[in-house]
């Protein structure tokens, strides 16, 4: 079988290869045998299936732009089952031979298509779907066969509709993918207003954020207030929190898979917006009609220009600028070959003087480039091969209360991967492949009292030690339909981490099983093991992003998680309402934190300043979503507990994770009043996160020495809680066709109000002591008050 070299055998061969490279000639035959047995177990059902079948394959696209529709359902009425399109809009279905085959093709927000085709021979059919108008929305409900949330052996996976992302009110009117992710069940937001998100008790670094398969290490702008993703350039956003398919790896807690648009294949078009913080412009069009296209999208803030103009000279030199550029081109080289080129660059540059004697200089950015080649070996075998490059850096110098911290994080990755999708029979859909990545990390961190002259030297990049490592991972995953009621997704991923002085081989079995109770109800269970070889070491005390990325090493062992999840999925009213209730339990080992009091004048080995522990998270997540109709939206509620335990912290006792927030409720709604007006709102209510304060004060005296003074007596780490967080955001969008110089275009005026009742939510708390009375007190800082905003968007 073709698949063997790419999965278990491949894994075994690679291990032998690595061993021999390192001069360890002893071949691990035992490992190889284990892999072959696993492979046979995975493929056994497929090998035994030999009925006469035909294959229907093709692509599903938007009729107007030719943009592929990811996750569209192609449903076979004869067999009451279907397939979904992959990231390239491709689907393949093996069905039993018949005189005719009935098909329903559906995609959320689009008019479904019903058709009949010959069932005697293999068919290649491309479908073009048309976006629904508001008035049609209620009529077509009964044709919506898109019940993937119930029928697929997938759980803890959420697709976020782009329409919702574009309609929801956000800070200063900036549309934001990550802010919408924060409103999903199982996701906790970070500090107020920031794009940081924490999934099922994992730290931010445990989220793998992919843009066209390239890793984006810091997907934020403006101190994290906005994400780097320009919504006009995005086609699809999927969040996976558990039940990870085997093609994904490298992070413990979530995968946020973002796919860029390919560009309009039919005609030249554009869209743009003018907002308070930034403006953007997207242009797209065919390079060769219906064959190839491009899209280029750019966004830049003009806040820096305003600040420069309005800030008197010799005053605080607060300044901030950011931009991002997305570009993509795709070429249909032949009927069976497509080539995709994607590029992304985002950069932030800031200088900030102000808040609580806080000064701050930051420069960070991501650059990614992806070259992908799709090849159709047959209508049952699809391949994508990618070459990916990404470059991330963050340089931060910050002073607070006469102390400074300076850090530099640099990451360069070169990735090569090949993924095969094979659709051998109605009962199996197999994915297999490998991924090789070569990473260079150069982290540096320094913290001490600021020099009297205030001049803090910039880090010398040449003097920072470069850390090189490789990861190769092999995987195989089979989506198996056992019976009408039972299906499963079973896979194995085998990553190998190699560094000059250490290597780690890990096995990551993945399994999701679904039992269908009826057409609209199913129960599912998932078990996954994940490993992570790059780590962000968080600083729990500073109110700024002083985190630093490091690689696994002899001292820093790979982070590891085991997660089990159970869920009940039920749809109502022909899939108009999707509901789910999931419970999960996750354990995490080799978690990384800085040691108590760790600081250095010189940025020596960071490893020695770290301490390692474990964590666990468990909870329940309720999700109720309305997909179609004039009113769409969702309610998500999460009840969760997340704790950590480090031998050298908190007297060795368990303590709550910083973002352990017991209750998390989000209500999100969008209402299309008519063809001109759309209203949206989002309400968020969360328990306060944890932070550390001393519970007691101890006086120490002894001969008037520098030791004399007051010391903190801590009862526990993260022993206090911030106040409850809540806010309501609203927006109104006025759509109107307009004309300029005789050219017609669609215009949109967006009026939004963030934090409509001006709640002063806590941002951080710090302690002070009165200079005269020596009385101690706490001060709370709130960041974002009510923020009205207006922006204007256009599309032609």
């Amino acid at each position: 079988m073709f698949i063997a070299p790419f999965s278990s055998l491949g894994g075994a061969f690679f291990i032998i290869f690595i061993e021999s490279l390192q001069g360890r000639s002893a071949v691990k035959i035992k490992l190889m045998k284990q892999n072959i047995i696993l492979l046979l177990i995975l493929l056994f059902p497929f090998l035994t299936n030999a009925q006469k079948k035909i294959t229907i394959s093709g692509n599903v696209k938007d009729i107007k732009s030719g943009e592929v529709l990811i996750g569209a359902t192609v449903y076979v009425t004869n067999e009451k089952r279907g397939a979904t399109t992959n990231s390239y809009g491709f689907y393949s279905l093996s069905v039993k031979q018949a005189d005719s085959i009935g098909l329903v093709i559906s995609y959320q927000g689009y008019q479904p298509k019903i058709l009949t085709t010959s069932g005697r021979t293999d068919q290649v059919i491309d479908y073009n779907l048309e976006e629904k108008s508001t008035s049609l929305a209620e009529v077509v409900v009964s044709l919506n066969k898109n019940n993937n949330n119930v029928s697929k052996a997938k759980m803890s996976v959420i697709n976020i509709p782009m329409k919702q992302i574009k309609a929801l009110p956000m800070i200063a009117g900036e549309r934001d993918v990550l802010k919408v992710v924060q409103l999903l069940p199982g996701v906790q937001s970070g500090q107020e207003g920031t794009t940081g998100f924490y999934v099922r008790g994992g730290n931010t670094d445990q989220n793998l954020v992919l843009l066209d398969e390239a890793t984006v290490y810091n997907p934020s702008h403006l101190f994290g207030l906005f994400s780097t993703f320009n919504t006009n350039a995005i086609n699809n956003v999927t969040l996976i929190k558990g039940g990870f398919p085997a093609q994904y790896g490298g992070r413990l807690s979530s995968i946020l898979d973002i796919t860029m648009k390919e560009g309009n294949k039919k005609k030249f078009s554009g869209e743009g917006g003018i907002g308070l913080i930034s403006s953007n412009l997207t242009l797209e069009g065919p390079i060769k009609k219906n064959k190839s296209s491009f899209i280029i999208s750019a966004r830049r803030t003009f806040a820096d220009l305003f600040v420069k103009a309005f800030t008197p000279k010799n005053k605080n030199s607060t300044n901030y600028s950011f931009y991002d550029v997305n570009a993509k081109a795709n070429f249909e080289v032949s009927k069976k070959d497509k080539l995709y080129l994607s590029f992304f660059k985002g950069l932030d540059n800031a200088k900030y003087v102000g808040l609580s004697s806080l000064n701050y200089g930051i420069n960070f950015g991501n650059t990614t480039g992806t070259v992908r080649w799709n090849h159709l070996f047959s209508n049952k075998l699809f391949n994508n091969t990618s070459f990916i490059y990404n470059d991330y850096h963050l340089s931060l110098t910050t002073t607070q209360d006469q102390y400074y911290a300076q850090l530099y994080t640099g990451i360069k990755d070169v990735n090569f991967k090949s993924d095969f999708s094979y659709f051998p029979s109605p009962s199996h859909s197999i994915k297999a492949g490998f991924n090789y990545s070569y990473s260079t990390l150069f982290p540096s961190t320094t913290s001490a009292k600021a020099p009297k002259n205030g001049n803090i030297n910039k880090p010398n990049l040449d003097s920072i030690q470069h850390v090189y490592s490789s990861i190769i991972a092999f995987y195989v995953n089979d989506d198996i339909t056992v019976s009408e009621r039972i299906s499963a997704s079973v896979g194995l991923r085998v990553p190998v981490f190699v560094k000059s002085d250490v290597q780690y081989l890990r096995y990551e079995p993945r399994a999701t099983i679904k039992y269908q109770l009826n057409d609209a109800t199913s129960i599912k269970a998932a078990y996954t093991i994940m490993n992570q070889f790059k780590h962000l070491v968080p600083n729990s005390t500073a109110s700024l992003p002083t985190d630093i990325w490091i690689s696994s090493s002899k001292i820093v062992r790979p982070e590891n998680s085991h997660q089990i999840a159970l869920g009940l999925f039920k749809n109502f009213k022909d899939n108009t309402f999707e509901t789910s209730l999931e419970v999960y339990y996750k354990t995490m080992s080799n978690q990384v934190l800085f040691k108590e009091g760790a600081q250095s004048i010189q940025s020596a080995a960071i490893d020695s300043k770290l301490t390692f522990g474990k964590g666990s998270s468990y909870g329940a997540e309720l999700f109720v979503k309305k997909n179609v109709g004039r009113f769409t939206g969702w309610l998500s509620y999460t009840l969760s507990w997340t704790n950590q335990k480090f031998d050298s912290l908190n007297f060795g006792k368990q303590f709550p994770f910083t973002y352990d927030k017991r209750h998390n409720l989000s209500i999100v709604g969008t209402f299309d009043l008519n063809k001109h007006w759309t209203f949206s709102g989002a309400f968020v209510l969360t328990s306060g996160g944890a932070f550390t304060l001393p519970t007691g004060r101890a006086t120490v005296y002894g001969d008037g020495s520098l030791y004399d003074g007051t010391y903190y007596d801590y009862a526990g780490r993260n022993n206090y809680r911030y106040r409850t967080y809540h806010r309501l955001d609203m927006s109104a969008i006025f759509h109107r066709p307009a004309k300029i110089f005789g050219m017609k275009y669609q215009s949109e005026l967006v009026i939004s109000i963030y934090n409509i009742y001006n709640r002063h939510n806590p941002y951080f708390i710090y302690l002070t002591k009165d200079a005269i009375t020596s009385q101690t007190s706490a001060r709370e800082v709130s960041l974002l008050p009510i923020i009205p905003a207006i922006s204007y968007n256009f599309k032609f």
Partner: protein
Amino acid sequence: MKKKTNTIFILFLLVIMSCEKTITIKQQSYQSKLSIQGLITPGELPKIYINRTVPYFDPKVNTRELTVDNATVTLNNGSTNDMLHFDSAYNYHYCRYDFFYTHAQAIQANTSYSLNITFNGIVYSAQATTNQSKVSITSLNYVQTFKDLYGEHEGIIVGYTDKPGEENFYRYEMGRMIDSSVHSVDAAKSSCTFGQKYYVKELGRTIYADKNVDGKALTFTFEPNYSHKKGDSAYVRLQSVDKNIFNFYDNLDRQKLAQYNPFVEPVFIIPGQFKNAIGVFGAYAVSDSVLFVYPE
């Protein structure tokens, strides 16, 4: 147009504007405990400082409110069991009384002492032995600027040779006469001496261990606590302290740094020799005094 631009700018300012206020935090239940510091050295009278810890936001702040004056304190060296009495000394620099327990018998060399404190029916006990080696200062120099975790400051460089074959810990001690024109690093000046000279003793905040440098000639630089003028003189001594003193003050030193530096993880005070109390009972030896004159 200008009006429109101003509106946009005001909206932008809202984004970066913050609100800050003093809040009342509901104090978590806190069981007050003792804070004990007792360092003994041969030839000197013992001084045992005993304070009570208080909830963090408790209004009690001055030494008299915090000191424990009704404990029963004894010092036993195997042959005598001396009861210490409550006493005080006036601190001329901070214009306050410092309170401690003491008695008239000087500490003996090469003797094991047992400290027992009985307070509210609970007995707190710890042991220390005065067997540390005296290590002589071989050189004293001055540097205008040196850099450590506490920042840039002047320093006095102490040279000595580590006693080989022992686990040793060192810190500096300086004694000098000053007046109200002198300020300490916390910017405090005496407001009650009116030009009259008074004696101060200061101890280095960092204790140096001889790990990996056993028996070698060493130097360390310390930051003096009090300001000075050219020609001011002081007597410097080198303390050889025991491991309990090192552990306790190293813990305090790291916490102090974490208090100052917002980029450092908080440091918890680890329970040491006393159960249910913060503190140390330790012994040290001191070198002979060396005269030091500030060159600038």
